[in-house]
């Protein structure tokens, strides 16, 4: 523990000396750096901040040093995260590669794949998209149809993937593909890494209720994929897929309590938009909703803390499996609460008459509806708890 305190002091001093003041402000989406061949730094300070963190090994503090990680323990990595949060330091590099593919590749990839992709992710040289869902395979993900035919020296991929985040800006996509149609659906799936520049790949953005189009549909038309891009064994991709989903769900669970984004917090909004009498919110319903939300977030934060401590001391519990459900439902509740607190000022779509924050609040409210659908819907999360934790009998699946 004393070593950890010393480490904390070291981190604190280094961050103080190296994080530019401009990178300690709440961040808006255009100010995020996502890396990749098509990516560029939103500002010179963002570049300096990213490069310093990269050179220090703290872009991925807990990944092995031989691939460019920091080689630190879970506890040390958390200290870095906590100290960054303390000074409201921005996340220097965003990306699905960093959050989801990297951890899965470290576990399931071969040495050549790790050498080729892990450092490139950390260095911000490759931006990744996720090819999981298909128009016909949402919650029933394992029924996916995008096909990879074994052509001897390569796979030939045909089909399409949907909800591929920013696929039009990505360099690579990791895909679940069908490599066997004769067996139980989970047993005929493989995990492929595909270069987005390969001939035969095209993307179409999808307009969402938030007015954004960050998701795409991605089409594969006779795309040749080298055999070396298969992760894990042929037809064993479902295990890789599930391991990666654990990282995705953990990420989504923590979204609400993570990096400082430029959004209004319900307590601040209450002060700004509600009437007070003697220090109390006069609207009894909103006061009650606000305290429910604050208590829930308090309990969720303590549970994140507990799951970390349990992992560090080797104690197994059911908590991690509930966090995606709890975290994303809470985010949705927060957005609804903000709208209720802001009244008609929370309804502005664009243009004059509203502050940027007010307009963003509404867009985020619309986006929050996707949180309990993506990465396994809330209903799927409850199925997982019923099956894996409570071990309730399963109905026969068609």
């Amino acid at each position, binding site marked *: 523990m004393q070593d950890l305190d010393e480490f904390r002091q070291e981190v604190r001093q280094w961050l103080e000396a190296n994080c530019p003041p401009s990178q300690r402000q709440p961040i808006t989406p255009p100010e995020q750096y996502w890396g990749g061949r098509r990516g560029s730094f939103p500002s010179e300070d963002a570049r300096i901040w990213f490069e310093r963190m990269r050179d220090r090994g703290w872009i991925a503090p807990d990944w092995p040093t031989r691939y460019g990680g920091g080689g630190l323990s879970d506890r040390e990595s958390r200290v870095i995260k906590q100290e960054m949060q303390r000074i409201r330091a921005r996340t220097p590099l965003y990306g699905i590669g960093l959050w989801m593919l990297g951890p899965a590749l470290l576990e399931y990839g071969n040495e050549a794949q790790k050498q080729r992709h892990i450092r490139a992710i950390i260095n911000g040289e490759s931006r990744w998209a996720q090819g999981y869902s298909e128009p016909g395979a949402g919650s029933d993900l394992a029924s996916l149809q995008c096909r990879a035919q074994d052509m001897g020296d390569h796979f030939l991929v045909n089909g399409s993937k949907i909800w591929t985040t920013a696929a039009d800006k990505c360099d690579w996509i990791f895909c679940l593909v069908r490599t066997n149609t004769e067996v139980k659906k989970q047993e005929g799936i493989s995990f492929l890494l595909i270069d987005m520049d390969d001939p035969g790949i095209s993307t179409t953005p999808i307009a969402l209720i938030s007015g954004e189009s960050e998701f795409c549909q991605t089409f594969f038309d006779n795309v040749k994929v080298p055999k070396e891009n298969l992760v894990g064994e042929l037809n064993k991709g479902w295990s890789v897929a599930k391991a990666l989903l654990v990282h995705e769900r953990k990420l989504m669970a923590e979204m609400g309590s993570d990096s400082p984004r430029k959004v209004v917090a319900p307590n601040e909004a209450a002060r700004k938009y509600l009437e*007070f009498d003697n*220090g*109390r919110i006069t609207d009894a319903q909103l006061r009650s909703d606000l305290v429910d939300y*604050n208590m829930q977030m308090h309990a969720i934060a303590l*549970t994140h803390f*507990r799951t970390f401590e349990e992992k560090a001391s080797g104690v197994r519990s059911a*908590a991690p499996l509930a966090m995606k459900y709890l975290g994303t439902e809470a985010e949705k509740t927060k957005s609804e609460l903000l709208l209720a607190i802001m009244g008609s000022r929370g309804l502005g779509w664009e243009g004059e008459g509203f502050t940027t924050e007010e307009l963003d609040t509404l867009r985020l409210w619309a986006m929050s509806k996707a949180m309990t659908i993506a990465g396994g819907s809330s209903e799927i999360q409850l199925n997982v708890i*019923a099956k894996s934790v409570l071990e*309730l009998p399963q109905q026969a699946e068609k």
Partner: protein
Amino acid sequence: MPLVLNEEQRLLRDTAREFLAGNAPVAAMRKLRDERDALGYDALLWRKMAELGWASIILPEAYGGLDFGFLGLGVVMEECGRTLAASPLFASAAVGASALLLGGNSEQKAALLPQIAAGELTLALALEETHHHRPTHISTTAVPEGEGFVLNGSKTFVLDGHSADKLIVVARSSEDDRNAQGLTLLLVDRQTPGLSCQRTVMADSRNAANLRFDNVRVGADCLVGEAGQGWAILEPVLDRGRVALAAEMMGCALEAFERTVAYLKQREQFGVPIGSFQALQHRAAQMQADIELCRSVLLQALSAVDETPEQLPMLASLAKAKLNELVKRVTNEAVQMHGGIGVTDEMDIGFFLKRARVTMQVFGDTGFHKDRYATLCGY
């Protein structure tokens, strides 16, 4: 704060579970009810609990205590919640002992704490005067007379009020009767002339009483803390009680939940186990998620008593409100998911439902604690 039980605490939990399964199963509670037991708990059981050190679990070794801290008490309370074990553990070992520990002078501590530790002396807190928890709405008066005080007024919902040897009475020594200022805590022998007691039979078949004080005279040595400064002791004592009770509620909720999940796997309708129906699976899974949140809140609140008392008010209200909601939801669902047999007296599940309702009212219902939490948040 670690939020994970250490080796010693896990061992304590296992010992407690084994002891209670053998000595105080739910059947024992049913027997107390059926026999309309005058004491409301089994004196022999309490003696055995004291031998295990439970009566002294939070007390320092100097007073013959086990000194396991509040996490230790929480572990035992939770296990007692699982079997609905009736005993003076809450009123005496958690609340009464805390009041003396926080407010008693050195003579009181030296004289009383070793007796409490041995389980020979039991205490009860005489606080409530209305049918809702309003700890500052006190009308019972303590008027100075000579060296001591004269008590007048009445108290209700006094847990163990008919069986405890001594009562810690919250009385008012100033004018305003809705204020935290001017409260005085007095330690009163239950046999003192002028004190009358009416035992009330509550939903949980446990032990509560209404008390009346008619010119009850007590000496100066009965004063706990300073006259008029009782709130400074009472508030942390109540918070400790809330957290201890939250631990019992966790045990009650967990047991009811586990019995229900087992029933979902066993009961068949339409030719399949009813637990295969998604309508029931999702409700069960949501309860599991709530249990996970409550577990973290409870551990943090228990640790706060000993480690970070400055955070206790907020955490105690968070824990009591969250566990109130959990135990209500889980016991209601337990009855519903058991179907017809859930509403029969033969099934134990109804005992959990009824105990839950009593614990939900003790030291503040959900609304009380949400209001307090909101106030502590500054809105």
